[in-house]
């Protein structure tokens, strides 16, 4: 608490001075003060960014996808810069769910953060196990939802990524949904690397997803032209950053359109992909996102999520909005 008290002497925190009612409810009755979030894997588990801004100022803090056991991740190099973006192949390095619920989650709770843990697995039962362990955490009160990263290789299916297959995705979501109390919304995080993202979205919602997060990285590759071999230790990697934003906007638009047309039940969408400024966030919101995650741009500007919140709120005020939620999906039917 002393840390929080101290904080109030800092410059007034983002949300106090916002001109627009930025609050949003993504399900389960958790009213978030604003729609800004970190993106999984781009913010570690909170302590590091808390040096730059108060992580409790975010709508929610999204943690690095956690699996059952500790994982070393892949060898290096794990990154390559690309035009207006980057490629990464971390290989889901992490401490495992036990360490996460014993150390990371309680710390986030101690600073007053609302947490959206991201979970992952190599099999649908691993996802279920991680969800169950999370539920049993003493810090579970800080959890406002669970994001399920289904862009993981499925060992049971020759390493094909769950998110590329509607059946595999649905199975994971159904099992995770069973492990968690009703008031904890489950978000399926979709991959854009599919022929028809609305088919995967529909399968996830049908299986019990209370919301969708879009998009994960695009599969990409960089070749080291000095040594003429793949630059990443893991050969291919995930492409992220502003360069892919038009793909995120399109994916959100298509899925939201399918909801308007009744092809998918309407659930909230968390938008992510290439957000650098409030203007970028507004693009995703107008396409249909009810919340916004800032990923790669944090590497450029560690306090980007709170900056984007301020910029977004100012833009909404300029455009005469009184409530953030009125801007969600506003570009449809114009």
């Amino acid at each position, binding site marked *: 608490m002393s840390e929080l008290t101290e904080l109030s002497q800092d410059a007034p925190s983002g949300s106090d001075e916002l001109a627009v009612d930025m609050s949003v409810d993504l399900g389960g009755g958790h009213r978030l003060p604003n729609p800004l979030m970190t993106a999984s894997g781009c913010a*570690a588990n909170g302590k590091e960014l808390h040096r730059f801004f108060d992580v409790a100022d975010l709508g929610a803090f999204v943690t690095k996808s956690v699996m059952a056991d500790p994982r*070393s991740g892949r060898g*290096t*190099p794990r990154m390559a810069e690309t035009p207006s973006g980057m490629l990464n192949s971390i290989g*889901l*390095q992490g401490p495992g769910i036990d360490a996460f619920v014993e150390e990371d989650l309680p710390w986030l709770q101690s600073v007053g953060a609302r947490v959206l843990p991201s979970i992952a697995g190599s099999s649908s039962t691993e996802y279920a196990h991680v969800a169950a362990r999370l539920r049993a955490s003493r810090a579970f009160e800080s959890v406002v939802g669970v994001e399920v990263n289904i862009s993981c*290789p499925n060992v049971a299916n020759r390493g094909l990524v769950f998110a590329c297959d509607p059946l595999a995705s649905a199975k994971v979501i159904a099992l995770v949904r069973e492990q968690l109390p009703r008031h904890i919304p489950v978000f399926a995080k979709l991959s854009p690397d599919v022929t028809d993202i609305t088919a995967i979205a529909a399968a996830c919602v049908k299986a019990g997803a209370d919301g969708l997060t879009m998009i994960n990285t695009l599969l990409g590759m960089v070749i080291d032209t000095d040594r003429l071999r793949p630059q990443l230790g893991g050969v291919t990697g995930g492409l992220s950053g*502003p360069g892919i934003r038009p793909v995120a906007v399109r994916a959100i638009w298509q899925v939201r359109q399918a909801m308007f047309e009744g092809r998918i039940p309407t659930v909230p969408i968390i938008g992510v992909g290439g957000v650098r400024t409030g203007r970028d966030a507004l693009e995703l919101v107008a396409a249909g996102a009810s919340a916004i995650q800032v990923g790669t741009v944090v590497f450029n*500007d560690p306090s980007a999520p709170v900056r984007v919140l301020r910029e977004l709120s100012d833009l909404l005020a300029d455009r005469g909005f009184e409530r953030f939620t009125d801007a969600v999906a506003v570009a449809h039917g114009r």
Partner: protein
Amino acid sequence: MTERAMRARVTQEVAEVIATRRVGAYQHITLVAPGVAELARPGQFVALAVGDDTSGNLLRRSFSIHKVSPSGTYGGTVEIVVSAVGAGTRWIVERAPHDTIDVVGPLGKAFPLPTEPVACVLVGGGYGSAPLFWLAGELRARGCHVEMVLGAASEDRLFGVVEARRSCDGVTVTTDDGSAGQQGWVSDPLPEIIERTRASVAYACGPMGMLESVTRVAQAHGAVAQVAVEESMACGVGVCMTCVMPVVGADDRTRMVRSCVEGPVFRGDRVRWDAFEGRHARVPDDCVGAPKVGGH
């Protein structure tokens, strides 16, 4: 600097370039960055953004802090020494006085200082010597005997020979091509210096191969190596997990640790040099969480 930055001992500021000059193959740049200057310790680094809002280069570039002057005519300044090797460093060396660069820092762990006035050897490869003069000053202020070895491929890639003579008790220069000092590697004169000065610590900064040799030589001659590494970093602040390398912990187990927050300075004998191969580092089989056979 906000109270948060003070407490966190890290800040982000838009720094003005007040001086920039060519030194051999490098550019020596002075930035007005009072927040960083106030907080920094030798061995720490800064991460500079490349370009403005129109820039397609999103990731920051990291540079060892060469020197800080916490106050002065312009407010506190931070100096760095840059070798232009790619798009980002080229942009940085092209900045003129009064241009601004966005800086985050200080980042990473500083060189640990001995509590006793022991003898130390400081080894710098190329621009790797940049952080060592400041370190030398701090060590001598504590009564340490300080010698320095500066090495590079050729004379123009040496940095700070004159400054070294001023700030140390002894200086040895080596170049691969013999264009300055003795021909050879920094590891050649090192055994003699450690033995003669009875050095307990060898501090080193430079390419990985050099850090490995310094570690080996130091160990063989009874000194502890403290090495500042340079891994590809996407964020520099500990959130992306790209900068990892295999390091042995206090529990004797190897983990892939982030060199930006748990480094860049590591005890040389803790680094799993066996895992490095060119610019790649493997995950050792005995690493915590290493892929099991047939596993991920």
